[in-house]
């Protein structure tokens, strides 16, 4: 399961949790304010991605970018 190797530190995970909740909430409930269904959908998608990161401790972008904020870095040289 190399693809799902954790790459987020606990601080990073917490931050993503907060962002995920806020953004998903804004996407779901802020329709009137946002006024644009496409943007609303994208916001929800982004929020959900962050929530996934919160749950798994893994970020797909970090994976592609070879970044890891986890203490014993697997990718950093």
């Amino acid at each position, binding site marked *: 399961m190399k693809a799902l190797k954790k790459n987020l530190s606990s601080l990073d995970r917490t931050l993503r949790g907060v962002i995920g909740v806020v953004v998903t909430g804004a996407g779901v409930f802020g329709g009137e*304010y*946002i*006024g*644009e269904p496409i*943007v609303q959908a*994208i*916001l929800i998608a*982004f929020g959900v991605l962050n929530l996934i990161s919160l749950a798994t401790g893994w970020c797909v*972008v*970090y994976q*592609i*970018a*070879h*970044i890891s904020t986890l203490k014993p870095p697997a990718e950093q*040289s």
Partner: protein
Amino acid sequence: MDAQALQIDPRLRSHLLLATLSLAIFVSTVFVVVAYRIASDLGVNSELKAAEINVALLSAQTDLANSESELESLLAPSGHYIEELQVKENIGVLVRNDTDFVVFSSGVSQSTIEAVTALLDEETTGSGLIELEGETYLWAAIKSHHNKQNYSLWVQETSSLDTLLHYIATRLTVTSFLTFWVAVWGALILSGIITKRIEKHNEALAYMASHDYLTDLPSRRYVFEQMSAHIEKARGADDCSHCGALLLLDLDQFKEINDTLGHSYGDEILKKISRRWRDALPSSHILARTGGDEFVVWTANLKTDNAAKIAAPLIEACERPFEVSGMLLNVDVSIGAAYFPKDGDTIEELMKNADIAMYHAKRKRSRLEMYAAADNPYTEIRVRLAGEVTQALSEEQFVLHYQPKVHLQTCQVTGAEALVRWNHPREGLIYPGAFIELIEHSDYIHAFSRYVLSHAIQQIQKWRDQGLEVSVAVNLSPYNLLDRSMTAFIREQLDHYGVTPEMLEIELTETATMIDIQTTQAVFKSFRELGVKLSLDDFGVGMSSLSYIKNLELDCIKLDRSFVLNMLSDPCDKAIVQTMLDLCANLGYQAVAEGVETQELADLLTNLGCAYGQGYFFAKPMPADQFVRFMQDTPKRRSA
């Protein structure tokens, strides 16, 4: 060290990230600003257009009204005109015809309308935005086409415009938030990919720089880096926890393999031997190739007596022959070891001392030698001197000293042997024992021998000009026999200085003549044809067979000093000298005894039938001008 240049910059990733993020922020800022401005400009323009239409309609109505009251009723709040316009904001209008003006206002105070009128010139037409006590108003004004006296002004609050802009701003904020987010992703991915790629290239470059392409062993640079790091760490530590050992390995007979079988064979052997050595060494030891057939083993944290243990498997690895293209080849190794910090606390010193030890191992054929400071004191100089030969030649630092060859009975000087001294600017006068061998093994041997020959011939001419007829003997190296143009050079020098060939004598040691009888014979023949005299030096200690002496057609044989010196005490030496003298007499060669140091020796040699001698009893080697004085004093000495 310049290795720094190849180390990966740890800030590269953060710099790249910062750069891409800045770009993302810049791009999204430009996008938001431009989008907002376009939207607001469009909104303002459409609002102004609407106001212009409204005021045009108002003006048309004004033209139709015949009286003020008619106008008032037209514009009254109860009138239907404004309602028909369906303007939701607070508006105000000012209409002036021939007689008077009427102000109608719905939400916009009369004072505001008047203030606007005051700000605008009464004749102003067109439309625009105007700031009044912190509020923005939209206005449009027109003059009737039919009646130039009619002027209509439309003033409207900008609340619908504000709503529009707020609406745009909201969407732009959310969109730009998303754009920025995506840009951050892009920046992260891009910087990650670029960094990874650069790191990969850098690693490849660093590997190439620190490894030897042929054997894939670490290079000189790598091992030096490791050593300097270790030395740096060990600085100040008193105990032996940081002791290290440097072993310098040099292959014997490798040059022969390269020269006879070609470099591909040599390369193959280097590969095979490095593989064997690598397998034989524990991984904590660094094995590196530092030059052609030179390797180095560096071990940190080692007890002082362990170099032999490290060397043993390396030597053992060379005991089995190497198979290259079906041929079995034997290669030996000579190893010199130096300990850190006992034998040197810098890389240079360790390398130099290991080199000296290795040189000893080669000479003694002992395979392994530890560096010992008490070794031949010249050895250390030797390494330094090797680099200074060219300069010494060009600056004429080599000087010739002359030792007289004397008729034993008459004490008459019959010739001189030229002996080289190196008048070194730093080391002082250096004797040939310290440098001849190193020159013989370098590329300078031919240049050096020519230098000596040329100076000796020149000296013969100088002495002749001073009225002294002295023949000079010059020692040639065995390697000079391989120099095909040597005869031509001697002839040219003799001609140049106008010296007759028989005044020059060429001395070759027995080992010199052993190279190969055909070559030696050919060179001797050419020397003989030239007319120079030939003599064999140090006779009796080499490995010459008597057939050589028979074939070489010499003029003179010099008996080695080792026999002569002990003749008085050792009957064996005396018997040998006697036999050699008989041999010379029977073959018709002149015999010269070397090492005549006492009167007794001179007398004994004379009794045995030796006519000529050379040695400290008569004179030590001396500079040319001193030699002249010696010659001038000779008659006095003889009479004394």
